[in-house]
């Protein structure tokens, strides 16, 4: 499905529409602008409609646990006051200079390539481009279920002039000539996805067109020796692990115990398992099939390691019902088994910096449950290692208004600063 200047076309029109894309984009860039206040009002209208349940049918097609909470958060984020605050927080703050006046302009045209790893992400990416005044070309992910075009069409219905700023194509990434046509009409490429997706875009992107990549990230927790006194914070962490199924880049994949003794990881597992179980009992596992396959793939890898001659796996599993903890001596920060299965490792703060540096470029959110002194020491190490987000245990995956994305203000990537000599 193609959305071009507010009209829906079948994919058989791809070649014809791509042929005129650059001209249409350039014409919009020369002659038209987005009235940001009108856009904010339009988005606010959508936020109201979400809250009133107008899109419930559409939203219910999104198959994720805890959907209601995400929807409520999204509606809140789209509220006009919050949107204004977000734009203000995320765009560059200009300083008065003696010889030069500065002002902000859109980048021009953004080419969004969103891997289908998060529902509504493609629409979100386009909206981010729109609030900065850009023309937006979107290549739909192969797994898109139609929700993106529905959301953007709704927006165009409320604010018809946006039709000149939104071009959505349903082209496979293997169709390189089409991908190049879209890239050539753009001033910047925005890619969301894992290493494979980012690398593929960098390979075909024309050299003069910058690529902004929002890659996959990994997150973790650090626990001090006095954890037995901190049951509330531990429960917050447990709920976070269970509620996100550890599928988000901000989901806790590994719990590091600030200790040099491997057996302290086992001690923590024994203490934390009932707490994790309490969270699991509150939020029962919904996607049994996915959890089962994750477990099977993990077991397959372990079995193949064993029959392939790898040394005996020394991991110790502490199993609950629908959740588990695994004490591991290997310290490398890697994904856990997802769906409430978290790895735990003893790693003193002295070693932590080197352990985290192995994952530089991937580090995102960290939380710490410890006394003030340990927290400060941890924060210093984590930030120096590359972590860009530190939250309370329960809030690892909470979206904060105006916050940066992976250490950068996302919208600052979608604007240019114009300097004009006085």
């Amino acid at each position, binding site marked *: 499905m193609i959305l071009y200047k507010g009209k829906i076309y079948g994919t058989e029109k791809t070649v014809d529409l791509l042929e005129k894309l650059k001209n249409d984009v350039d014409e919009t860039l020369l002659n038209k602008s987005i009235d940001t206040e009108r856009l904010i009002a339009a988005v606010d209208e959508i936020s109201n409609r979400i809250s009133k349940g107008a899109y419930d049918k559409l939203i219910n097609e999104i198959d994720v646990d805890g959907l209601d909470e995400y929807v409520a958060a999204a509606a809140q984020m789209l509220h006009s006051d919050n949107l204004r605050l977000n734009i203000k927080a995320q765009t560059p703050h200009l300083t008065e200079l003696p010889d030069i006046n500065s002002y902000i302009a859109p980048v021009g045209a953004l080419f969004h*390539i969103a891997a*289908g790893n998060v529902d509504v992400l493609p629409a979100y990416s386009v909206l981010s481009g729109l609030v900065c005044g850009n023309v937006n070309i979107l290549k739909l992910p192969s797994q898109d279920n139609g929700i993106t075009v529905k959301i953007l069409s709704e927006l165009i219905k409320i604010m018809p002039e946006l039709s000149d700023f939104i071009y959505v194509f349903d082209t496979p990434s293997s169709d390189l000539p089409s991908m190049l046509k879209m890239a050539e009409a753009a001033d910047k490429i925005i890619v969301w996805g*894992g290493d494979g*997706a980012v690398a593929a875009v960098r390979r075909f992107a024309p050299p003069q067109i910058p690529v902004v990549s929002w890659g996959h*990230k990994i997150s973790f927790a650090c626990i001090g020796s006095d954890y037995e006194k901190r049951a509330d914070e531990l429960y917050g962490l447990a709920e976070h692990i269970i509620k996100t199924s550890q599928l988000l880049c901000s989901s806790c994949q590994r719990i590091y115990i600030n200790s040099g003794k491997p057996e302290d990881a086992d001690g923590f597992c024994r203490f934390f398992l009932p707490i994790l179980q309490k969270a699991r009992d509150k939020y029962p596992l919904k996607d049994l099939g996915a959890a089962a396959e994750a477990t099977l793939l993990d*077991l397959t890898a372990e079995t193949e390691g064993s029959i392939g001659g790898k040394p005996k796996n020394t991991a110790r599993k502490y199993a609950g019902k629908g959740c588990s903890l695994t004490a591991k001596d290997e310290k490398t920060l890697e*994904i856990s088994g997802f769906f*409430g299965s978290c790895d735990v490792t003893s790693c003193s703060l002295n070693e932590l910096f080197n352990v985290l540096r192995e994952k530089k470029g991937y580090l995102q959110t960290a939380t710490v449950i410890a006394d003030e002194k340990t927290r400060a020491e941890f924060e210093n190490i984590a930030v120096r290692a590359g972590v860009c987000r530190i939250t309370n245990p329960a809030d690892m995956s909470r979206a904060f208004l105006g916050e940066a994305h992976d250490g950068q203000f996302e919208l600052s990537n979608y604007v240019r600063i114009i300097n004009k000599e006085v």
Partner: protein
Amino acid sequence: MKFRRALFRKKPYDKDDEAFVSAVREMTEYHIKHNKKYAKLLSDADFSPDTLKCAEDLKKLPFIPTLVFKRNELFTIDKRKIPVKVTSSGTGGSAGVIGFELSGLFCAFKMVLKIFSFRNLFSPRLTNYVVFGYKPDKNNKTAVSKTAFGTTLFAPALHRTYALTRKDGKYEVDLDAVCRAIEKYAKQKHPVRFMGFPSYTYFTMKLLEEKKTDAKLPKGSKIILAGGWKQYYKEQVDKKEFYDTAKRVLGMDDENVIEFYGAVEHPVSYCDCKNHNLHVPAYSRVIIRDVTTLEPLPYGQIGLVELITPMIKATPITAVMPDDLGVLYPGETCGCGINTPYLKIIGRVGLKDVKTCAAGASQLLGDVKL
């Protein structure tokens, strides 16, 4: 292998835990002695066959995901000396090879005779077959094609029609041709047997209904289902809808619709009873395990299915875990008179729809496509 021999002499649903555990212990010892990779696997798990003393101990026996066999050769007997090698269907994208020695095949043969006799599947009457599966040829070594063909030997075949035939090197489904054959068979006096995938069987019945074809089959006809819905799982219908359609279109009562469950990596035949439940035969045991922790679950809870049988020496498939989700119920609750537990297959595991932005997930899930 005296304990294995003793076990496979038993009647299909005679549950004898002592005999079963002894045979599993014997088979596990054999694999450990002759298969270094398997021995290492059990050693890494700190497992010794001596542990196996009662049925409860079967839960401790390390099990192997069937995916391991699809990606690795793990024979206990020298590959060149294995007389029969069977390829799994490879619906998940990869196919594995399981080796069978003659003594194991003999056990399988005895089991099939007993279970099929129990369900009255042998008949001397000339029969027309419609196989909803692959037409066998020298290039197709899959178990599903061999099993389907084997089933057409239970009653002498007058004619066989296949739903999947090879054209230009690729298998193609031709349900229209199958409908024409059924229409022809329906006019004859010989019984007809359908055999194979439930998906194609159901689609054909719906096609016959759409075409308003008179396809009421002669008395003594049967529908034998095996192989699951595979890639058509989204179109899967419940059993009642299936039986109602069979009655409406083919004039067949549900007692003549017989379902089988099994796998190449677990060559035990699970045949449904008169109440259409898959009771666990004497030659195997089923354990349902938690989908995240792999801990054994009690009756009535859904989990990953672990299958145990001491049938085969050539490949260490004593305890395997296919990618099925199932639930086990106590035999007495069925009411058919068989007292062994019965297994209900709920579906297949699947991460395909999982969406994640966690770095490193591609190792597990494969990279998300653009």
